[in-house]
């Protein structure tokens, strides 16, 4: 059921990013919202649950983008691994650092894109819009990144509770809501 939740949320974000967002100039430099999902998985879910989801998200994005194949898979995996490593010595979940986690993820993703372009022999200079675009994405991530993380957590918890209640009702057990 948890994977169904991830599939629905990811599909919604993917469709939003590819079909709705490009038609709204205000959101032109919005950061990749799937990074927020990746960070959420890294912060709040076990690795064995998060890794397949992160891989599938990256695979889907790689197929929808003109980016070199693997860019999204690897950037999400690096972000996920980075969060897991960070959590071994610093719990950012309840602190102000939560504001900077998404922004750091965005930086990792963008620098990986840039490194790929350079490693691929692109003779384009650093695009004029790169630093500006990166700055805007960074600001978006600072402002709404933590909100997304909290929203995902809230929705996920309620979704699981709702599902457990349905299952309990179906099997004749007291539900979580009614057991109080």
């Amino acid at each position, binding site marked *: 059921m948890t994977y169904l939740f991830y599939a629905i949320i990811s599909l919604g974000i993917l*469709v939003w990013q590819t*079909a709705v967002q490009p038609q709204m100039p205000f959101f032109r430099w919005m950061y990749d919202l799937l990074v927020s999902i990746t960070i959420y998985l890294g912060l709040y879910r076990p690795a064995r649950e998060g890794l397949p989801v992160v891989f599938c998200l990256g*695979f889907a994005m790689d197929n929808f*983008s003109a980016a070199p194949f693997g*860019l999204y898979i690897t950037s999400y995996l690096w972000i996920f691994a980075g969060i897991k490593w960070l959590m071994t010595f610093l719990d950012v979940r309840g602190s102000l650092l939560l504001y900077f986690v998404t922004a750091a993820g965005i930086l990792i993703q963008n620098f990986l894109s840039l490194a790929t372009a350079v490693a691929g022999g692109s003779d384009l200079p650093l695009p004029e819009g790169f630093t500006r675009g990166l700055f805007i994405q960074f600001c978006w991530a600072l402002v709404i990144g933590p909100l997304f993380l909290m929203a995902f957590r809230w929705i996920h918890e309620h979704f699981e509770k709702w599902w457990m209640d349905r299952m309990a009702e179906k099997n004749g057990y007291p539900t979580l809501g009614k057991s109080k």
Partner: protein
Amino acid sequence: MFSRRSVLIVGVILVIAVNLVFLSVTSTRHSSFGPGRIVLTLISPFQSGVTHTIHFFRSIWGHYFNLVNVSKKNQELQQQLRLTLEKNHALKEVELTNTRLRSLLNFKEGVARKVLPAEVVGMDPSPWFRSIMIDKGYQHGIRKGLPVVVSEGVAGQVTDVAHRYAKVLLIIDQNSSMDALVQRTRARGIVSGGEEQNCLFRYVLRKEDVKIGDTVVSSGLDGVFPKGLRVGEVSGVVKRSAGIFQEVMVAPYADFEKLEEVLVIMNPSVVNFSKEQ
């Protein structure tokens, strides 16, 4: 001999290096693996549904709230139509003359292009890369490499095809390249993606005469785009004191921010060098 920490650091550096090498290799190829097509097939219908819904509401807005401007616009269009008809008559004469002269010179007759209209259902999720998804795929005869145009000019080429959907790499993407000519002087070069919504016209010799406002058209020599398709207008020329090439910026005629429908050329009739060799 080595501490665990230094082995870990070296390991991470190695993984990063392998990662970058892998990405630089895949950046030269524009096609997804087999399962990738399944992803396109599964998710594109949702994109299509959302895009149609947006277009539906937009059309309601257009039809019911912009009626005030319709009358004025109608008069302007009537005027434009008259001018266009006059121009059309003149062009017919030119066409007839062209046909006569071509037959005199024993030229092959141009093959009529078969085009397939397609609707844009999705755009690239990344601001750094430029591609679109269209609602036509294998089922409609689309195949990899077919050129895609809009009424204003060249849009891009098909890079990936699923059953009912296809991905199109736009000419403004940094990985896109097409052989092109300056229409006025026949100066040759390669049009590739530049900054923002612009293109760069690379490898144009310094001695060539290129001016701002010149039209750039496809040369037909890249084996993808037929000859003579409008690409864009020269928007800037920089001749440095050193180097054998000049830097030419091209503003594409197609407005990539507002792409809604495109045409896929099904029989591009380009030169097939491999067969000729």
